[in-house]
């Protein structure tokens, strides 16, 4: 099979070319040592050695806080009109690609969320191969989510083997074809192989409430919510409305919410359907490993390891998931 190859020394030129028609973002190590998705400035290369960014790419599709409606007395509620700039995300690992695939299923579909859909259509996904570290679990659970990409860069000696996964990817390659070389051989195996599996439908019993692990997790959890902020497939949001100072206009915003917060399942009158931290942990577990609503049966954990790496209490749902879900491969 003929594959395209780009030498490492041509990467900067390629990025320069990509930047001509779109904003270009990728994993960048900041002065504080933290790796985050940010603009790849001219002359800077993305940090391919980083196993994970602090926040996942969901921040581009669902902003941490964003206006979803504006109100004026004259026009009533109106959706904001957003100017969307083409954006290329360069350097996504398979888990983050699969995470976007999951979010697509929630926010696109029958009636797409307008803000999400607009940003998603302007987004080009460029994946890069990676090596899982001790926090990663992509290789431990088969995922039915697909690591879809426009382009994928496999890191090999001296450069990258480039694969296109969409017509947009083919077009991009066409624009940079003078930087590419034809190469024989096969594409080396990478973490994409853990995604896109048909997971056998099986009726699993509800997670056993009596397992002591729930309370052990709950006892140590600080309830800070860092795990879901940095989760590529956590999308729960709260909705707030703010009245304008003129008292006749308003804006409604949605902001990232968190299922480990006490008020997540509270209703008017103070009744709380998930009063204890252990109940909230089981809720989180169900969402990550069993799926909700139309995505019931589809685990949403993509194994990126962010929740485990950031948890200040060192909590890890993985051993429990291995026991209750099975499917451990390696």
């Amino acid at each position: 099979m003929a594959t395209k190859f780009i030498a490492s020394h041509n990467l900067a030129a390629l990025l320069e070319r990509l930047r001509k028609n779109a904003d270009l973002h990728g994993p960048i190590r900041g002065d504080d040592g933290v790796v985050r998705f940010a603009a790849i400035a001219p002359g800077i290369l993305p940090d391919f050695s980083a196993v994970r960014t602090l926040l996942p790419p969901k921040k581009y599709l669902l902003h941490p806080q964003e206006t979803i409606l504006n109100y004026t007395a004259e026009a009533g509620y109106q959706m904001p009109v957003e100017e969307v700039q083409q954006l290329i995300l360069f350097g996504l690992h398979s888990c983050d690609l699969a995470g976007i695939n999951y979010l697509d299923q929630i926010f696109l579909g029958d009636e797409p969320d307008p803000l999400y859909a607009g940003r998603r259509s302007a987004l080009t996904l460029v994946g890069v191969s990676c090596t899982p570290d001790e926090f990663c679990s992509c290789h431990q659970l088969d995922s039915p989510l697909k690591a879809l990409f426009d382009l994928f860069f496999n890191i090999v000696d001296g450069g990258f083997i480039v694969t296109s996964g969409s017509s947009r990817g083919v077009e991009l390659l066409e624009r940079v074809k003078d930087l590419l070389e034809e190469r024989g051989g096969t594409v080396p195996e990478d973490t994409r192989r853990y995604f896109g599996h048909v997971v056998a439908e099986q009726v699993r019993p509800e997670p056993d409430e009596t397992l002591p692990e729930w309370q052990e997790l709950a006892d140590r959890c600080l309830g800070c919510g860092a795990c879901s902020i940095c989760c590529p497939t956590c999308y729960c949001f709260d909705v707030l409305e703010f009245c304008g100072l003129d008292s006749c206009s308003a804006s409604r915003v949605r902001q990232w919410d968190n299922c480990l917060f006490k008020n997540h399942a509270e209703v008017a009158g103070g009744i709380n359907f998930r009063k204890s931290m252990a109940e909230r942990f089981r809720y989180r577990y169900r969402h990550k490993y069993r799926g909700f609503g139309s995505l019931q049966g589809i685990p949403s954990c993509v194994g990126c390891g962010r929740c485990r790496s950031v948890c200040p209490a060192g909590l890890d749902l993985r051993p429990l998931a291995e026991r209750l879900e099975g499917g451990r491969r390696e």
Partner: protein
Amino acid sequence: MNSNLPVPAVISTIRPLTVDTSLLTLFTAPSCSVAASFLPGQFLELSLPGVGEIPISYCGFPSQDGSIELCVRHVGHVTTPLKAVTPGDAVGVRGPFGRGFQLSAYTGQDLLLIAGGLGIAPLRSLLLALLHRRELWGRLTILYGARESSALLFLDELLELQKRGEVELQMSVDQPKHCLDGPPYCRIALLPALLDQLSLDPARTFAAICGPPVVYPLLISRLQQMGLSGEKIHLSLERRMKCGVGRCGHCAVGTLLCCVDGPVFSLAELAGIEGALA
């Protein structure tokens, strides 16, 4: 129609039902689907500009003229300011959302409606739909409990229906308070006690229940003792449905979403789900 965008509506009348509960009538455009095409048990999202948005069950009957009836208790962050609205004030509505009572399954059957407190609101919508085609159903029985007789809502309507022989009505109040006489057909008892004197044919009866979560376990166990299967006990669940379209994640019941899969569930669907009825 975009279900994320509230359509304009105007408050038409505000009828105080009790000291803290009102029946609001609002108007949206004629033939607007928010008003015209809902099933009893479904809900809409009501926006009070500058304050916020809340899910509220439909309380009335679908209308082509754009009118919507909502029964509101003024206790929450949106419903408290809603107490101050006056006719002509602008609000917004989105909906209908969720799965309501499956009327087609009830054809030819006896219906037992059990309401606790404000739970009468969605069941009034169901009752209006049942009365609209009264000939399609068998016995209609209403059991309705409130904390005190002054908190019984829609009392005139219910007593009138009882008088006309359309329904069998039994009510209960937890405590007598100041009103010593109380209305007719009303006992001082907890709601589940009304089942003790009721005879029903479990083979041809569906129960439709809406009330505060605290009454569900006792009502359910009593109905099961009377021979009703889990498929024939239909419950409306209260959750915090912030978006209405299955995205915000607040209303999950196990792996079901109250805003899409509910808010009306059969007991059989909720079997084994932690926290569903807690």
